[in-house]
């Protein structure tokens, strides 16, 4: 990065955090610290919801996915607007009227304390595992790209996030989220324009799309239904709806955003704003990745995008990597030549030559990745997350590099701060105040919330510091986290429904839903998008079968 990029990066981060803390002044009650006094406007909530969901890995990984796999990932988001409409119509009025701090507090009002406690513990386990990863995963990529030692990146991000989250509470988190989302929007636009402007003068935007299209990257909608195909229209609409319902309707890190709304109208519009913006936004991010693919048709990309692994491979003495590298260069030249013929003539023979050369390049890249995995004792290696940042650092003009890097930091910090904030809220409201220290002063609980936020921040930083030694456990943590959502959604479906289900039924249903998803994940090939549907249906079915009786409310 050049001097001006550092200036843009540092000024952006300082300004965002400074403004967030400025807006958070006066948060001196537990309600203002955890729920912003329920005074937030829809646009701040809406941007905060979006920023919380957009982690740094989502930001850089999605563009990488567009490069490798094309546009089909956009179908994953088709369920989101449907879920937002359902949550707005059903959940928002119930949460608003019940005056709760956490989604799980509502479960006690509706069922009983053990259902609330189980759901909140599930959240603490799931999000507690996730927050460490939310810090570790981007830190690894940023360390490699910026050339910083991993502990420095982790400590820098950890200290910044924990400081403003502890001091300012949810107001600081949400105001910084809103600014961070604006920086992310700017970063996406900058990268998109840079990819288009980087094309050779004789290659138009439509030529670039055509080149990506003949390698199968322009398939945004797949109408074929397949249980094992992760991304098609049906898995997106059905599985995606259940996933989005679970995440936005039951996960405290999201529910807490809209619980801060000053009215039902503000809460609803914030969710519907996401419903309208998210799908086209994801399309643009993926399309940026596909354009980066077209850019690298004419500019030779490195065989491996991770510079550290690339340097390690280049130092190999057995010549294996060098052999792969020379075949790679020949294949890239053939693809580039074929691409020029395609854009000049659109002849079928040129298109075939382009596709063949592109397939050959893919095979060679896999061989190089295999060499990395072999030298790392078989550990899975993912080069996709480094594609976008390589493009940004190498080919964007001075100033814009700093802006996009600020967007990546912003994406990381907005997710982590929301998770710390929600973890602290659940810890204090659902456990500390509920079981340990009842009827204390408002100041007491606000202090407890600050200490709890700091605790989760230190935990996340320590977890991330040891991330490098966890190896394949990281993947296990990711998988475990995805198992809980379905049953969590199921218990909220029971809670929001007019059916008369008692606490025993809801609790048993949740246990059965968790077991069903664990069995599905262990013994079937069903892709993860369907876990939420399975867990939800099992929870509701068992809840209805065992819990037909008087509710806590009735």
């Amino acid at each position: 990065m050049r001097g001006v990029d550092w200036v843009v990066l540092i000024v952006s981060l300082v300004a965002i955090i400074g403004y967030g803390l400025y807006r958070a002044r006066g948060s001196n009650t537990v309600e203002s610290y955890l729920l912003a006094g329920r005074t937030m406007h829809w646009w701040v909530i809406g941007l905060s919801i979006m920023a919380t969901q957009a982690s740094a890995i989502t930001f850089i990984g999605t563009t990488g996915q567009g490069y490798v796999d094309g546009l089909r990932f956009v179908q994953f988001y088709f369920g989101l607007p449907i879920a937002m409409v359902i949550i707005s119509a059903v959940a928002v009025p119930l949460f608003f009227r019940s005056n709760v701090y956490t989604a799980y507090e509502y479960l006690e009002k509706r069922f009983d304390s053990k259902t609330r406690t189980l759901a909140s513990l599930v959240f603490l386990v799931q999000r507690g595992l996730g927050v460490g990863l939310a810090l570790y995963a981007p830190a690894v990529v940023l360390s490699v790209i910026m050339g910083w030692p991993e502990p420095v990146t982790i400590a820098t991000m950890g200290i910044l996030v924990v400081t403003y989250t502890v001091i300012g509470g949810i107001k600081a988190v949400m105001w910084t989220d809103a600014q961070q989302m604006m920086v992310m929007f700017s970063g996406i636009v900058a990268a998109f324009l840079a990819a288009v402007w980087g094309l050779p003068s004789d290659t138009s935007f439509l030529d670039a799309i055509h080149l990506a299209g003949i390698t199968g990257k322009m398939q945004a909608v797949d109408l074929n239904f397949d249980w094992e195909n992760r991304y098609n229209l049906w898995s997106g609409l059905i599985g995606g709806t259940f996933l989005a319902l679970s995440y936005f309707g039951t996960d405290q890190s999201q529910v807490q955003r809209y619980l801060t709304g000053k009215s039902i109208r503000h809460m609803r519009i914030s969710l519907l704003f996401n419903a309208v913006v998210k799908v086209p936004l994801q399309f643009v991010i993926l399309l940026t990745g596909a354009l980066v693919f077209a850019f690298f048709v004419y500019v030779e990309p490195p065989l491996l995008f991770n510079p550290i692994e690339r340097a390690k491979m280049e130092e190999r003495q057995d010549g294996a990597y060098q052999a792969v590298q020379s075949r790679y260069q020949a294949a890239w030249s053939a693809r580039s030549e074929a691409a020029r013929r395609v854009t000049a003539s659109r002849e079928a023979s040129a298109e075939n030559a382009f596709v063949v050369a592109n397939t050959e390049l893919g095979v060679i890249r896999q061989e190089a990745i295999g060499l990395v995995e072999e030298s790392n004792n078989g550990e899975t290696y993912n080069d996709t997350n480094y594609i976008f940042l390589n493009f940004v650092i190498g080919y964007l003009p001075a100033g814009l590099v700093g802006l996009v890097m600020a967007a990546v930091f912003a994406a990381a910090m907005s997710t982590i701060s929301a998770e710390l904030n929600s973890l602290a809220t659940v810890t204090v409201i659902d456990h500390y105040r509920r079981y340990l220290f009842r009827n204390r002063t408002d100041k007491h609980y606000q202090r407890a919330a600050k200490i709890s936020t700091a605790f989760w921040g230190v935990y996340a930083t320590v977890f991330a510091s040891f991330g490098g030694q966890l190896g394949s456990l990281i993947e296990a943590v990711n998988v475990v986290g995805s198992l809980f959502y379905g049953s969590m959604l199921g218990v909220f479906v029971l809670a929001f429904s007019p059916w008369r289900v008692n606490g025993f039924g809801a609790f048993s249903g949740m246990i059965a839903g968790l077991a069903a998803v664990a069995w599905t994940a262990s013994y079937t090939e069903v892709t993860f998008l369907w876990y939420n549907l399975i867990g939800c249906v099992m929870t509701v079915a068992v809840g209805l079968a065992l819990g037909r009786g008087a509710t806590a409310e009735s």
Partner: protein
Amino acid sequence: MRSVDSGTEEEPPPFLGTWGRVYATVLAHLAFWIVVFYLFTVRFDLPS
């Protein structure tokens, strides 16, 4: 803390008159994008 009996939940949406119409518009917007993406796929996706 806001009142449980607050009347704000009856507030109409800022546009289109009723929440039902707003929800229908959001879903129509999703359908629009799916159709656009489908047409985009038909036009540009030429699987190898």
